[in-house]
């Protein structure tokens, strides 16, 4: 068996060398730099941070480069790296009401305090390939608008839309609390899951899976009919209480996408007629994921809202939460390519034996 091990080692070393060559690609083409990926592939970086569940744009960019652009492989690298980091603290809950918004839209109210801000969106592009981006030498970017003189005024808060519906009691409230939430990165997830645990799982869940689950609710699998009450993308401050100081200090800023969906609701056995809410919150700019997350969040709330279980997959907590993590999914999926030689030999023997028995029985009957 030693011969087999040595042969394997040499093959693996050569495979790694070839992988490195393929990753680099044609040598006459300039090598990608981490800042290039971080700045110019920002939405890929965002996805890797969100699903890797670690906010660090440089690390995500590095993972994307190393993974040759395979984003799930990049997420794997980030998840692995994250296990080497000691958990120092939990932050104070971020205040999305204090977000410095880049983008903020509502499908439910046209005129709202703070206004509809489109931000750097793809929404109104024509989706035609822009061959100008293929040519070398893009035009120099427009000079930034001159900054107004620094003022002493604090930045105005952009209030959440749901606070208006809240005033008339038309929408269910989200009461503040300081409860300590469960953490599926520390304790195995057990079902039934608290809504906070479901949101944690969805926030780091595969965008494609969550998107499809959300789409299924719109096609009738689950009876929610959702409006985007508010979608906002921007930067929030992150603060941590420092044990040696006894007070909280801001330690940085992160970009977030938040989506609140408002859902028609005719009331149920236990709840009065109200609008109900779905909530999506994702690290980085990740609009599709945030909207999808809020739809799936709402679908999974059928029980606490006294609704019927229609058998829709998006209402099935076990189905959604057990399959939304793409690292767990690909881990188990890809393991079937590992050597199962002994297992298969056993299967082969069994099939041969069963066939021999069947033939013998047929001959005996004749």
């Amino acid at each position, binding site marked *: 068996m030693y011969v087999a091990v040595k042969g394997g080692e040499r093959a693996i070393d050569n495979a790694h060398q070839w992988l490195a060559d393929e990753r680099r690609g044609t040598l006459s083409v300039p090598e990608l730099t981490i800042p290039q990926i971080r700045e110019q592939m920002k939405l890929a970086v965002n996805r890797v941070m969100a699903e890797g569940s670690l906010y660090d744009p440089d690390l995500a960019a590095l993972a994307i480069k190393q993974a040759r652009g395979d984003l799930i492989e990049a997420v794997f690298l980030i998840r692995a790296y994250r296990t080497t980091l000691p958990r120092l603290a939990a932050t104070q809950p971020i205040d999305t009401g204090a977000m410095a918004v880049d983008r903020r839209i509502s499908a439910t109210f046209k005129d709202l305090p703070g206004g509809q801000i489109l931000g750097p969106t793809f929404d109104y592009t024509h989706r035609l390939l822009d061959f100008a981006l293929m040519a070398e030498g893009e035009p120099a970017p427009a000079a930034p608008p001159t900054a107004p003189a620094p003022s002493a005024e604090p930045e105005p808060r952009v209030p959440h839309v749901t606070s208006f519906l809240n005033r008339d009691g038309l929408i269910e409230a989200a009461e503040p609390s300081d409860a300590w939430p469960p953490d599926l990165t520390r304790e195995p997830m057990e079902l039934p899951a608290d809504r906070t645990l479901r949101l944690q799982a969805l926030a780091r869940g595969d965008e494609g899976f969550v998107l499809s689950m959300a789409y299924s609710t719109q096609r009738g699998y689950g009876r929610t009919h959702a409006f985007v009450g508010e979608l906002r993308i921007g930067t929030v401050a992150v603060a941590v209480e420092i*044990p*040696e100081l006894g007070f909280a200090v801001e330690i940085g800023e992160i970009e977030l996408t938040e989506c609140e969906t408002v859902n028609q609701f005719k009331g149920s056995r236990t709840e009065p007629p109200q609008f109900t809410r779905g909530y999506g919150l994702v690290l980085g700019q990740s609009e599709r994921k945030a909207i999808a997350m809020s739809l799936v969040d709402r679908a999974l709330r059928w029980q606490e809202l006294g609704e019927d279980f229609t058998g829709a997959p998006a209402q099935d907590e076990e189905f959604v939460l057990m399959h939304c993590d793409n690292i767990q999914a690909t881990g188990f999926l890809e393991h079937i390519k590992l050597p199962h030689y002994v297992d298969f030999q056993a299967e082969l023997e069994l099939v041969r034996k069963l066939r021999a028995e069947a033939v013998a029985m047929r001959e005996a009957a004749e």
Partner: protein
Amino acid sequence: MNAHALEGGFTEAPVQSARAFREILEAVARPGTIHRVQGARPPAPLSVAAGTALLVLTDPTTHLHLAGRADCPAVREWIAFHIGAPLAVAEEADFALGTWDALQPVSRFRIGQPEYPDRSATLIVDCDRLVNHGPTLTGPGIENATWLNLPETAAFDANRALFPLGFDTLFTAGDQIAALPRSTRVEAT
């Protein structure tokens, strides 16, 4: 916070903690053997070995019970700065630290559950000295027999009877450390 509490942690955490962890692992794998660990300089009355064991084995998720004179402001502050372990009563502790007398009655400490025998407490018993004389130890990790100056045998005998449940014990003195996992049989000589 008392400035002294901010000192005495690892100066080279990756190397020092890996080395100390290895020694503690060896001690638990070979019960009764005495090893040396260093790196921590905790405030009194903690020994270097007890402080090092805390730095290596505890973190903000492990509930720690301080018993007797170990429960003093200087130690609490040192733990808060270097480790961040939440303090707990004996019944809820994952780790408990003190002299053998201060830790009594040890029947308060968690012994695990049938599905999760590991959800139990580890005692860190600070002693005056550790020598290989005294009650006889036999069992897994011990080739024939060894001896360790345990403070008593009755409590450990009773603990062994609970196997696979039970608490596990580390003994510390100065920079020395030895271990008595729940799987070891003890006999007064």
